[in-house]
């Protein structure tokens, strides 16, 4: 049982503040979409949760069973050890390493190493393409295959909460919907709790249990549930073009 609670978060780069009092909640077992166009702070928020950026104010809390973990005080390494994995924007694979080495590195933390073989099997079943390309250099694969590897590598750490930052970037439309479906499948079949940042509203709302819209570093709209997200006037008029 994990739940991620972000409260009144203020963060940025140097003197430039990007997020202003952002609050959101990712309940256990749900897929939450963080929606917004480019430059509104989605990636900054994701990086804060993964520990790559330290927030200046506010809190990020992971509720794991009875424990309350203050993630803002953790290093990226500790955050991975608490069961959070991130698929970063732009995939960020190790291009010169093989597919297999990329996956193995994903299982670096002690608990994940024990399940290494099992996790690799799981990833190869989820993305059979990766099994075919096992010994190939990651950088020499197509964009779609690289995105599969990025997701699979994050799964290798056996996370409870998966952060996915813009899985659709740079992919052909058919691959985008396949990728989104796979992420949805991880939630439904594996029970993984997911926070996904996305600018492709049409695709993201297909799998989201609820969503937040972020505009200029502030939460402009927080939906109660999936229907609320789809039926909202603001979403319809600005982002879906209906």
């Amino acid at each position, binding site marked *: 049982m994990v739940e991620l609670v972000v409260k009144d978060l203020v963060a940025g780069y140097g003197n430039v503040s990007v997020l202003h009092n952002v609050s959101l909640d990712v309940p256990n077992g749900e897929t939450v979409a963080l929606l917004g166009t480019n430059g509104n702070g989605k990636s900054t928020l994701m990086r804060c949760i*993964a*520990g*790559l950026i330290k927030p200046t104010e506010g809190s990020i809390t992971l509720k794991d069973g009875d424990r309350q973990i203050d993630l803002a005080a953790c*290093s*990226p*390494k500790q*955050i*991975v*050890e608490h069961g959070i*994995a*991130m698929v*970063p924007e732009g995939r*960020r*694979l*190790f*291009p*010169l*390493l093989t597919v297999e*080495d990329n996956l*193995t*590195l*994903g299982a*670096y*933390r002690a608990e994940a*190493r024990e399940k290494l073989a099992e996790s690799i099997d799981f990833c190869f079943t989820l993305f059979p393409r990766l099994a075919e390309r096992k010994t190939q*250099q990651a*950088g*020499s694969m197509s964009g779609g295959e690289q995105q599969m590897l990025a997701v699979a*590598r*994050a799964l290798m*750490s056996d996370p409870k909460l998966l952060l996915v930052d813009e899985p659709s970037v740079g992919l052909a439309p058919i691959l985008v919907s396949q990728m989104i479906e796979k992420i949805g499948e991880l939630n439904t079949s594996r029970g993984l709790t997911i926070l996904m940042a996305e600018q492709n509203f049409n695709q993201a709302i297909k799998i989201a249990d609820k969503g937040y819209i972020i505009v200029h570093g502030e939460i402009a709209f927080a939906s109660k549930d999936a229907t609320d997200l789809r039926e909202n006037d603001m979403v319809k008029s600005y982002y879906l073009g209906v």
Partner: protein
Amino acid sequence: MIILELFINALIAGILLGGFFAALSIGLSICFGLLDTVNIAHPTFIVAAAFCTFILNANFGIDPILAGIIITPLFFGLGWVIYSLYYQFFEKTSAEALRGLAFFFGLLFITEVVLIISFGVDHRLVNAAYIGKSFGGEFAGISVSVPFRLLSAFVVAAILTLGLQMFLDRSFFGRATRAVHQDMMALSLMGVDPVAIKRIAFAIGLGTCGIAGALMIIVIPIEPAVGRLFIGNVFAIVVLGGLGSISGTLIAAMILGIAESMVSTFFGPSWAPAVSFTILLGVLAFRPTGLLGVGDTR
């Protein structure tokens, strides 16, 4: 027949020399090829290790190879300290390119001066049962001679380099070391502290100086500035093999060892130092990333 005999002897000596070169270069291949630290002082640290071996051998009669193993943790520790300083003052502030090079140049001179003050500029040697003897015989009318000192250095070098390569290839730590220069941020998302990886890897790279120094004093007489002779060689080998490729380094060391041995047999020893850079230029003209270097596919 005499030409064939010369050729075969030069080939054997070259292969043995290549193994020795591999031991000298593998630490630099890690520090420079995988971690992007231009450790120009690497050969000088090897000379420092050679002097440590000399002390242990001359004062306590310890076998030079055993001495090399004994001092390896010392050089591992030294590498740990050097990288911590380098990270704190240069890499963290992104000033590594030129000022970092100056830092290692400074270390080179300081080490050299300390060695000169402590030992003078005389050449030093070590004693061991296998030094000064050779193994030889006639095979099909060709007389072959293999100096034991080169053979023992080759065997130790092979164990060191192949063992290290296997470790970097198969362990979690090795994979992280190979990944760290490709994407540090992505590595921290895997739950790995990239700076810790670099620190340990650099320490391992410098740790190899312990064994390499012992091999150096087994193979040649040493004096404090002898490291300079090898700066060209080791950098040429690492670049020739391809940055980031340990197996490339081992192959390049072999090629250079054989080529130098051939050239000094057939054209005279004074030509030998020109060999490494001639081969380097030739190979880089056709393969800019080195023999096994893959370049950057990003």
